[in-house]
């Protein structure tokens, strides 16, 4: 209990609260802007965060994460173009509500559901992360190796629409991570003579290139601009205080009358968020499908049913909390934004993995509280900036793209004052563009970069400890249980491929 309170007190400083507010506003901005995700924003901010203490950098990123998760719903509801992946299902009900003249109510429901779902899920993480990390602490090299295998299988079984492409991307990430000195004898391998690679491909240029630069290059190619034709809908010019209070009251009342739907959607988001790399889209569509299946007004779904928005938005923000669990207990990113947060930890010299919750307990709880307050503040801040938010969708990338590209390149340079890192950023940016053009997901590549060294180091260690005996890989009941999960996920992967082939 003590570290939980200490984390709360640690956040309650002027700097802490200011960073939550700044991050939330930044998250709103990128969430509304189609073609931009919280991971892009966090990746671009990554080099700047080196000048902040590690927990402040993470506070900023956590708040961006929460803000973007809600704000993606605004363009989804107003113009049927989701600002983030998590808002895709929201558009199914939100846009029909806008067409029926209920845009205000739809946004109010989305705001309240995001806040409630996010807060409940974050409180659950705060309450249970310590016991979970205790379990993670019992993991030896065998168990950690199996966890890495599970992460790899999750790529194939659950990530995205293309399991084979996702697996290839994951393997490629692991191969890129293998371009280093090998962990056993420190022999350079696949380094092409670059001494900079001996300590592995630096994670930060990879993240900045794959998220920030790729996005900007694609934006430049498409020259997307979006029309926000609904500014006046969400920017009332008179009676704003009364109307704001009325909106908060009515949306809160709406959720109170649907406690099971809200809790169920939150739980779906939370548990799918815990699985690394699964992605928010799956959680949202599952929540949406479950709400539709159990709703007495199932016939209204697709025509502007607010219950659909409650389901998708509550699970959307719950996912952000869920992703913190593998990130903080195992050092495996639960989502792209969590991967950027891990990169920030690497940058500050923090050893990630099961020891993180022991050595950096205060920082971990501070970040979790930041996520909680960011979710809570979505209600008032989201209400205040609703009008300007919709204007963001009018931004012309003519100047935005050059600015962000330079931010990416100079940012990559600034971390180690290395031009090599700038070249790497460009290469990863191009790789990201090629990936997207051929329909390969980028997230498994990042997971591969993280899982590769984890799998290799622990596999080699386990083989040495077990003197090459395969039986050593079944040394504990935990290991046996984890192998059971591996078997289950293998079956799911095969079934998914077979079913996908049949469907085509």
């Amino acid at each position, binding site marked *: 209990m003590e570290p939980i309170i200490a984390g709360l007190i640690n956040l309650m400083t002027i700097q802490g609260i200011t960073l939550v507010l700044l991050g939330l506003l930044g998250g709103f901005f990128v969430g509304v802007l189609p073609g931009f995700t919280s991971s892009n924003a966090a990746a671009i901010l990554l080099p700047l965060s080196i000048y902040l203490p590690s927990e402040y950098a993470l506070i900023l990123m956590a708040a961006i994460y929460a803000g973007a998760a809600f704000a993606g719903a605004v363009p989804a509801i107003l113009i049927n173009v989701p600002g983030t992946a998590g808002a895709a299902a929201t558009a199914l009900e939100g846009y029909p509500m806008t067409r029926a003249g209920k845009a205000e109510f739809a946004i109010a429901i989305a705001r309240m559901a995001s806040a409630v779902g996010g807060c409940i899920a974050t409180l659950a993480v705060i309450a249970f992360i310590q016991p979970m990390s205790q379990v993670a602490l019992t993991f030896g090299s065998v168990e950690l190796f199996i966890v890495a295998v599970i992460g790899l299988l999750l790529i194939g079984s659950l990530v995205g629409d293309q399991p084979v492409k996702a697996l290839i991307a994951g*393997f490629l990430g692991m191969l890129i991570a293998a371009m280093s*000195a090998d962990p056993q004898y420190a022999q350079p391998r696949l380094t092409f003579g670059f001494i900079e690679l001996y300590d592995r491909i630096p994670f930060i240029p990879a993240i900045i290139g794959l998220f920030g630069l790729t996005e900007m290059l694609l934006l430049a190619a498409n020259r997307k601009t979006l029309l926000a034709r609904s500014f006046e809908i969400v920017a009332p010019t008179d009676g704003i205080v009364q109307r704001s209070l009325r909106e908060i009251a009515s949306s809160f009342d709406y959720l109170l009358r649907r406690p099971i739907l809200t809790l169920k959607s939150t739980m779906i988001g939370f548990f799918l968020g815990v699985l690394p790399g699964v992605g*928010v889209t799956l959680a949202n569509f599952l929540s949406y499908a479950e709400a539709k299946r159990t709703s007495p007004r199932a016939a209204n779904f697709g025509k502007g049913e607010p219950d659909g928005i409650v389901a998708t938005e509550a699970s959307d923000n719950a996912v952000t909390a869920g992703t913190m669990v593998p990130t903080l207990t195992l050092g495996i990113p639960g989502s792209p934004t969590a991967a950027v947060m891990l990169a920030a930890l690497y940058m500050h010299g923090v050893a990630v993995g099961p020891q993180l919750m022991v050595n950096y307990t205060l920082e971990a709880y501070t970040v979790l509280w930041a996520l909680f307050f960011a979710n809570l503040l979505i209600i008032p801040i989201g209400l205040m900036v609703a009008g300007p938010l919709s204007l963001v969708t009018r931004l012309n990338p003519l100047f935005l793209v050059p600015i962000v590209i330079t931010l990416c390149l100079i940012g990559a340079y600034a971390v180690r004052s290395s031009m090599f890192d700038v070249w790497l950023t460009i290469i990863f940016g191009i790789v990201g563009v090629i990936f997207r053009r051929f329909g390969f997901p980028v997230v498994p590549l990042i997971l591969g970069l993280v899982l590769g060294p984890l799998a290799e180091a622990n596999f080699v260690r386990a083989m040495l400890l077990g003197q090459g005996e395969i039986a050593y890989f079944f040394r504990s009941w935990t290991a046996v249980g984890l192998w059971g999960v591996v078997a289950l996920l293998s079956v799911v992967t095969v079934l998914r491929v077979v079913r996908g082939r049949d469907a085509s």
Partner: protein
Amino acid sequence: MIRSNVIAGAICLSIAIFVYWLAGSVPAMTATDNLGGRFFPRLIAVAMMIASIGLIVTGLLGIEISGGTAKGGAVKSEDDETAAPAPEDEAPLYFGWFGAGELRLGGFVVVMAIYTMILPVIGYIPSSVLAFAALIAIAGEYRPIRVALGAVGITALLYFLFAIVFQMNLPGPSLF
């Protein structure tokens, strides 16, 4: 046949074979060393070869293996970001084999590469002004005064942010 899958699979297969071959040059430390530095990259390379062959074969047979993830709407996803064209997207223009978008993307990459080359030679400010002017022009703003003002303004803004606010090390000129 799904041509893009076949091409992508062939490229990935080539990469995997190349890595497998390259990993063979990692020296083994002892005569009985089966788990030296070459083992892991080769293991992953083999797995990638199998997956790539799967992609090629299914591509040749015209089978698109799409998993069971629910889909819907125009979605910009963190793991599959293929957003539908926005209402205000420009009309597609083609110059020979390439569309205007591809040419612009190529132009951006070339400018980034040149920028990275000249950055340590002439320093942050002159190289950034030149790079910004080129990027803004490629992005579609051709009016010289706006290009010049934009390039100088953005360079100054980022210099203020990086060098003054965050006191970062910016690349200095080695030429002067």
